[in-house]
């Protein structure tokens, strides 16, 4: 446990505090169901099919054959209980079905009934159950109370990955016609327009031109944000929230300043104007592949040599872990660079080479901590050393900011808490769940607020940034206390003013 420097001054705050059990507390928490249009745009039946029970079992059988891991996870749980108090949604709601083991069991009990000998013959002895409407409703409710952050799997002695189980649950739901509106509407927009927002090329161009004006007004330096520039060296793929929301857009400005300072040739693509890949949230390989192929296509069309991803948590997981399988081979890119690279790797590399100059005092009004986004922390790496995904963002922050403090060790790095809005749950109708799920992270933040006077938190994920700007005001912070990592870079970077020709 975290040792407080002066217990007399600090209120006792324990981010890991075990809640009182409230069975059924969150049973009514369900996201809006996808409309027939949203469903069909992702290749799923428009509404709940008549023979949904048979179809669901059939799909489960298919997934068990396709993903060996799923079968191992469903078979290997010994009910040791190590995961029970590791989920932020359980800690925030006290609903026992949000204990990772119990959430897994919603699928496991049906698996046992249909796919194990003991479950077929002696269901009640082995916790096997039929798929009833009640079970189906539980699936819909509780598989949308898992943000697929995988904190529980860090503590599971067998490494059971609850995220994969909730992805399988959602995939089955999609295939019987009961998908979730938020994810499926967004995926449809990526397929047709190229990004989650539905931002068309003319709107994107206008937004980027506006940012160029703002940066020049602010710094006197003509920093460009090129769009669809053929022959550029670098394709930047970033979440479309970076073109729209705060503080995301300040991070985008930071990337542009870094590219400018490095003298790099780079471009954004209007065709692949989205880093996020919601296909992963719904466990759909096919949707994930189609979204990834847009990036490949854009890289080919623009003739770039490198692909760099902006600040987006699960995008980096898909990019780092799956991009080559989904959309490779990328043998047409420059083999001297990793495929793909993270913007933090790119910036840190330049810092190490001494190519960027900073005035750290520009961030002196900020006392900072860093929130490790779950997908970056537990499913990826950065750089060429283990733990680079933790150290590189922190190294950048320490380079640009004088006052940096980590939150308690059991709430960061591989033990980080989800922001409460990940995994396709960042939707308004789930606000109650989101607020409750954010509470462990908020408590951890309050400990460093009390002990070190921390005023701001930085993150490298679009979802985290939006979620925190929504929930932080409930915990005594301003809405703009959540920052993009490259926003801090942007504040401190020294850009060379252009030579005056006159």
């Amino acid at each position, binding site marked *: 446990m975290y040792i407080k420097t002066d217990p007399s001054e600090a209120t006792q705050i324990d981010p890991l505090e075990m809640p009182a059990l409230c069975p059924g507390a969150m049973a009514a928490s369900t996201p809006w169901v996808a409309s027939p249009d949203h469903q069909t745009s992702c290749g799923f039946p428009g509404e709940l099919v008549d023979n949904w029970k048979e179809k669901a079992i059939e799909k489960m059988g298919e997934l068990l054959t396709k993903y060996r891991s799923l079968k191992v996870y469903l078979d290997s749980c010994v009910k040791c209980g190590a995961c029970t108090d590791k989920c932020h949604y359980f800690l925030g709601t006290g609903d026992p079905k949000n204990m990772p083991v119990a959430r897994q069991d919603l699928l496991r009990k049906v698996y046992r009934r249909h796919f194990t000998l003991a479950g077929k013959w002696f269901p009640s002895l082995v916790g096997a159950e039929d798929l009833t409407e009640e079970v189906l409703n539980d699936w819909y409710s509780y598989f949308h109370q898992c943000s697929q952050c995988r904190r529980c799997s860090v503590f599971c002695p067998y490494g059971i990955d609850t995220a994969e189980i909730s992805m399988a649950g959602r995939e089955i739901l999609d295939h019987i016609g009961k998908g979730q509106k938020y994810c499926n509407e967004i995926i449809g927009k990526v397929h047709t327009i190229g990004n989650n927002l539905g931002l068309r090329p003319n709107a994107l161009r206008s937004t980027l031109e506006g*940012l160029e004006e703002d940066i020049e007004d602010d710094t006197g330096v003509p920093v460009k944000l090129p769009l669809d520039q053929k022959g550029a060296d670098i394709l930047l793929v970033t979440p479309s929230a970076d073109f729209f929301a705060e503080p995301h857009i300040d991070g985008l400005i930071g990337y542009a300043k870094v590219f400018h300072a490095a003298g790099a040739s780079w471009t954004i693509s209007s065709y692949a104007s989205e880093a996020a890949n919601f296909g992963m949230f719904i466990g759909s390989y096919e949707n994930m592949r189609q979204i990834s192929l847009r990036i490949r296509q854009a890289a080919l069309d623009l003739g770039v040599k490198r692909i760099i991803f902006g600040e987006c948590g699960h995008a980096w997981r898909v990019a780092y872990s799956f991009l080559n399988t989904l959309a490779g081979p990328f043998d047409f890119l420059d083999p001297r660079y990793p495929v793909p690279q993270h913007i933090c790797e790119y910036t840190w590399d330049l810092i190490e080479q001494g190519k960027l100059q900073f005035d750290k005092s520009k961030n002196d009004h900020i006392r900072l901590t860093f929130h490790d986004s779950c997908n970056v922390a537990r499913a990826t790496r950065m750089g060429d050393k283990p733990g680079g995904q933790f150290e590189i963002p922190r190294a950048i922050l320490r380079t640009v900011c004088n006052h940096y403090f980590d939150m308690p060790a059991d709430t960061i790095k591989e033990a980080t808490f989800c922001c409460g809005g990940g995994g396709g749950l960042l939707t308004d109708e789930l606000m109650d769940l989101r607020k409750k799920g954010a509470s462990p992270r908020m408590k951890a933040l309050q400990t460093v607020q009390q002990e070190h006077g921390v005023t701001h938190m930085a993150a490298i994920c*679009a979802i985290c940034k939006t979620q925190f700007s929504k929930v932080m005001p409930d915990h005594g912070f301003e809405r703009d206390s959540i920052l993009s990592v490259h926003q801090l870079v942007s504040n401190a970077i020294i850009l060379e003013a252009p030579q005056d020709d006159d």
Partner: protein
Amino acid sequence: MGYQWNGQEIAADEEGYLTDLSQWNPELALLIAEDEKVNMTDDHWEVVNFLREYYDEYQIAPAIRVLTKALKKKLGEEKSTNKYLYDLFPYGPAKQACKIAGLPKPTGCV
């Protein structure tokens, strides 16, 4: 969900966003605003009207930064901060103001 306006049933989605954008009119906007507990003043209308103009051209709501910049040009420094927008539309200028303006909800990680 939907709105009763002028003896007609105006269709909306689960969250109250109009499903047919062409059905929007200023009176309906007042009705939506009432549901949102937003008391529409001239300042609110400045925002709503800008959103609609921007949408006409780009088929999407503007980034918050684009909105604040436009307001700054027109109304000055004071009426162009994020805080000012949140004071007008407490649930968030993008989502709540879009709903009142009869525009679709911005989707994604926003």
